[in-house]
């Protein structure tokens, strides 16, 4: 009797194997579906912001360097007038700029300066300053691979956060503003 019961239990187990395999596969597929392969973790996090000395978009004879920005929390937004998702992101940046929470620097990536100027005139300028990176070398140093990208630097000049893709209003509320407040509170 007992033997038979064990027998039927092992038989049941046999039928359960495909179900178990299916569940394991489903778990892996679910993890795979929720991965975002477009968001490559930046190796720059918690490291000093890459050095640069770039001409300002609206005053090309002047240069901005990374050392000019030491001692304050600042945000670098990589944008271009040819970038479609930057257009979607732009109103969000304008709103963030109105809060005066952080110094906003624009990195005008591989763009035509005239188009870039026109963009800022027609859509509004959220940046305290925009710098030009016409051949993409500064972008390369920052590990930029798609526009828009947004970095947040602390007072010591360390990269503390990177956002790939357009920033949405909920990102601003949930991530950017709390992070900026936290960084502003840190000692320089």
């Amino acid at each position, binding site marked *: *009797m007992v033997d038979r019961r064990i027998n039927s239990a092992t038989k049941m187990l046999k039928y359960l194997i495909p179900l178990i395999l299916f569940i394991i596969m489903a778990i892996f597929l679910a993890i795979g579906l929720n991965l975002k*392969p477009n968001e*490559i*973790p*930046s*190796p*720059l996090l918690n490291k000093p912001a*890459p050095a640069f000395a770039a001409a300002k978009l609206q005053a090309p004879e002047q240069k901005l360097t990374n050392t000019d920005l030491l001692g304050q929390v600042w945000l670098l937004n990589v944008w271009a007038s040819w970038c479609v998702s930057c257009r979607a992101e732009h109103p969000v940046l304008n709103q963030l700029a109105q809060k005066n929470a952080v110094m906003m620097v624009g990195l005008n990536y*591989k763009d035509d300066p005239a188009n870039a100027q026109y963009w800022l005139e027609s859509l509004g300028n959220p940046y305290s300053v925009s710098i030009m990176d016409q*051949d*993409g*070398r500064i*972008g*390369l*140093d*920052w*590990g930029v*691979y*798609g526009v828009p990208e947004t970095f947040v630097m602390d007072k010591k000049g360390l990269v503390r956060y990177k956002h790939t893709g357009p920033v949405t209003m909920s990102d601003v509320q949930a991530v950017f503003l709390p992070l900026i407040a936290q960084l502003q509170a840190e000692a320089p």
Partner: protein
Amino acid sequence: MKAYILILLLCLSPLASAIDSRQFANPEQQQAYEELTSELRCLVCQNQTIADSNAELAGDLRRQVQEMLEQGKSRDDIVTFMTDRYGDFVLYKPPFKLKTGLLWVGPVAFLLLGLLAIVLVIRHKKTAVTDATIGTTPEKLAKIRRLLDEGEHS
């Protein structure tokens, strides 16, 4: 006739795939350039190397590799330069680290798992077959039947 022309044109297409080929004076540099560009991933079109990709970023990365080679930088210098900016993901051959361990060990682990499954299945089949052959002799069948009957009465 049209078909022949089409076939001829299709034969020419590999020539078009050589995205801006770069010439080096030094054949070693040329080789290093070709090896490096086919080991670095284009981060925009993630399943292509920067040698294959036509994306702007791939062009910039190719230019960077070329410039660094011409400056006399070594392969390791260039690989470090790239991983410092883009992380290990930029390498088609990631280094063996704790983080990439599963990537390297995974296929072998799955192979071993598969072999184990095969061994278990074969063993199981073998014992099943021997059980069946034991059961075929008439004396044993009779014995089994008797035992089963007794079991039911008790």
